[in-house]
């Protein structure tokens, strides 16, 4: 859907990307993660066309139609709408701007948002739901989600996630999520992209990642390829190994454990902080 090829982008005093490439595929739910400040938000903005890369190209798939940007929606907790507007005014502004004829949102009804409230008066979660409702009116094909879940209460969160799931099922929407809390979305995503030093450090399907990343406990420290991270715990060493294949340990006595996404990513990022 979106093919980013050798992107370079810097802010005035900081280089974010130098030679970055990534493909977003149709109907796939991708998690983008990395250390704070690595450029995850910037990446989403580049995908959405809010920022323009200084070098390299971003190619949109033909399936997105003649106006690709109209079919790509970004929802972010940093993005504000025109807060002085009422909901009705904002709807009118957005629909006329995006050329949408009719606007009917069961989502808004479910969230209990009526037309006369001013946006400023809404809670953060409500604003996000409202923005999502606006974005949905354009029937986007790619939905970019930047750290929004934590701002929502339980009810809104449920509403939000249900909407995402419906979008996946009904229209095979591609999701690109930046989320630091993996528990919430571990069962939704299919692909994990870890960004480190402005490059893609890990780009794997979730199942493959989990299949290959194991925690190997051993009395001795095992050197060798694939050890992402090793710590000493009491009388044994814990190694996070990727990829782990049976026999990797040689003839040493080990126990192997599976990991959840949090642990896997943590291990990868552990190298960064160390």
């Amino acid at each position: 859907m979106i093919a980013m090829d050798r992107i370079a982008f810097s802010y005035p005093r900081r280089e974010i990307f130098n030679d970055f490439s990534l493909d977003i595929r149709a109907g796939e739910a991708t998690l983008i993660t990395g250390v704070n400040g690595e450029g995850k938000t910037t990446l989403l903005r580049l995908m959405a066309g809010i920022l323009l890369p200084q070098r390299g190209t971003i190619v949109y798939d033909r399936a997105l139609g003649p106006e690709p940007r109209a079919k790509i929606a970004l929802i972010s907790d940093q993005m504000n709408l025109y807060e002085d507007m009422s909901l009705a005014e904002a709807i009118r502004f957005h629909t006329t701007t995006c050329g949408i004829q009719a606007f009917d949102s069961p989502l808004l009804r479910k969230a209990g948002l009526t037309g006369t409230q001013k946006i400023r008066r809404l809670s953060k979660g409500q604003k996000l739901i409202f923005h999502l409702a606006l974005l949905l009116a354009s029937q986007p094909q790619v939905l970019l989600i930047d750290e929004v879940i934590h701002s929502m209460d339980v009810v809104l969160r449920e509403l939000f996630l249900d909407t995402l799931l419906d979008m996946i099922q009904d229209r095979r929407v591609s999701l690109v999520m930046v989320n630091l809390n993996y528990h919430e979305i571990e069962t939704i995503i299919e692909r994990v992209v870890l960004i480190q030093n402005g490059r893609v450090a890990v780009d794997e399907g979730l199942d493959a990642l989990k299949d290959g990343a194991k925690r190997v406990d051993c009395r001795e420290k095992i050197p060798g390829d694939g050890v992402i991270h090793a710590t000493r715990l009491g009388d044994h060493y814990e190694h996070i190994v990727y990829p782990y294949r049976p026999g990797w340990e040689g003839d040493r006595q080990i126990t192997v454990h599976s990991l959840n996404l949090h642990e896997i990513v943590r291990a990868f990022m552990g190298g960064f902080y160390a």
Partner: protein
Amino acid sequence: MLRKEISDTLKLSVGTVFVFFIVVAYAFLLVRLVVDAEFPFSEFLPLMVFITMLGFSFYLGISLFAEEKNQRAFEYLLSLRFTRTRLLWNKLLPRFVALSAAAVLYHILSLFLRPFPVPGGWIVFLAVYMSLFLAAVSMSLVHRSHITTMVYALALFMITYAIFALFTMQFQELDLWGHAEVKFVAVCLFLVAATAFIGFCLHFRRMDLGNMTRLFLRSVGSAARYLGLPLLVLLIAWIVLNRFDARDPAPGWTMTPSGSPQADQDNGFWHLWTLSERPDLDVESDQQVILKYRRLLDPRFDLDRYVEHYEYWTNKATYRDYAKKRNTILKGHADLLSPWDIRPYRSTAITTAREAILRLRRESAVYLDRYDRMLGCDRFEDLTAPRFKSPLPNLLAWMHIAKLYNWLAILAAADGRWEEAEAKLLAHSECLRKAVTHSRLLLVHLVAKGILADTLNTLAVVMNLEGCPERFFRAILGRIPEANIAALGSETAFKADYLAFADYIEKRHFSLSDHWLGRLLGALFLQENRTKGYLHRPYADAIALEKIPPHRWKTNAADWGKRYGRSRQGLLWWIQNPVGKSVADTAAITNLRSVVHKSYNLIAIVDLLRISAEFRLRDDGTTPVETLLEDLTAYRRKDPYSGRSYGWNGERGVLYSHGPDLDDDRGLRSYLPDRDGDLILPVRLQRDPGRGGANPAPEE
């Protein structure tokens, strides 16, 4: 999105109008209370509207992204499906429309509410109006905070205004407007603002959401590169172009300041200069006086410094007492009061004022004495230096005394002392003829001509007195030679005047030099020879014109103003020698055509006088006038204003020339022969009313 922008712009416009009304009301009250209770609203209103227009334009530009800044909706705006260019266009279009509409309304308002001056004129206003908007737009993203942005922008505009004012050198003068330099600078300002604006638009496409000041600095950088560099190149080219001066337009026109260093009492002009010195001083022996004039004459003396100290005005001050006395004595004799009046005399005006004239003679004894000595001189060499701020002799005194001299001659003739009158007047006219020939600066030359005309008219009056003897007429024919341009022309005076201007240019005497910026611009953009050329042209043309009698002139008098008017003509006048042209335009050159007329007028009067004298000699009382005229040698002279013989109107008894209007008005007396009428000389004919031709008393 366009709809929102339109409604935002409308809100802003309406808000401005609202604020305007309130501010105007309060400000006007304030002005009335504090400054001037009588201050007229009709003066206050145009200024307020003008300021509001500029403020509106500025605010319209700077508030381009106000909504986005205040509500932090920038990212949302950028996330919409428009390209950045389209986004900017949506923002700018309603504002451009509002700007234009406001300007149109302003124009309509200025038409309906007269008077409604637009300071600087429409070009300057529109240039500044648009510049403010464009520059404000390019600064609209300098800072996240709206207030800070406006502060930055205002500071920048203050600096720009200061530079603008300095450049146009009208820092002290409030009359800043209306000059071509201001228009030029306003247009340059517009170009710079436009380029900053274009730079802004180009960089808006690649702007990030981080540091917004960068965007402005980048656009300034663009402006510097895309406009500044070419402009710099153009500026250098402009300066280089102005380095190539023309050749000296009049290399042959030189005049040394004066003759010998010694005080030259054989020089008639020396006596003219000393004429109005204090009556108690003996001008021929007093060393102070002699030294004063010696310094003027000595070419080695630093006249530039001396001019500052020359006791020019002290001279006038002492003379003023005499002038007051003169006015008191001549009160009631309106014909005689004005020294400038050189119309032909009425003899009766003089004779009835006898008492006053004789009293005046007593008061003027010293001056008359000095004047006699002037008339006695053979040599006339003008001491007046052809340079800027040249000291002049007291010309007023000259006119006073000369006229008095002539009146006394009339009185002498009226008393029957014909020889005395003859001697006086002919000596006077000979002296004046030399003064005309040898005088330098135009002013001195014109005064000399005027007094000569006065003297010739006096001769005519005396000729018409009862009992004028034949020898008088003979003397006239003998001692007043035929007039020609070589003797009576203004060529020397024209050259001297030109040289005074040339000195003005060379020594940078003009007011521009009071300011350091003026001096710099003078150094860069004033080409001496070229500027002198502008001033040279009318004089050279006048000299050439003078050699042709007026009846053969092709062009109209009215053209003179157009031909030798402003040097700053055409749209591109400023490219070459702009400072020179501006200075030349401030140097007022009198209408030289009328100076040339004066020369020919004099020639005509001399001719008419001689014709009249010869006529009176040969008149036998019976031959018809026209026939007699044909016989006269003097009559063979052609009227320079018609190309034919002079005219004779028997009914009026006048010999006449067509005069500068070139029309035959049949001897109608005119006080403004330039416009209408003829130059006339009344001739008394001693004829029997019954025989041959009408013979009334000559019209006086």
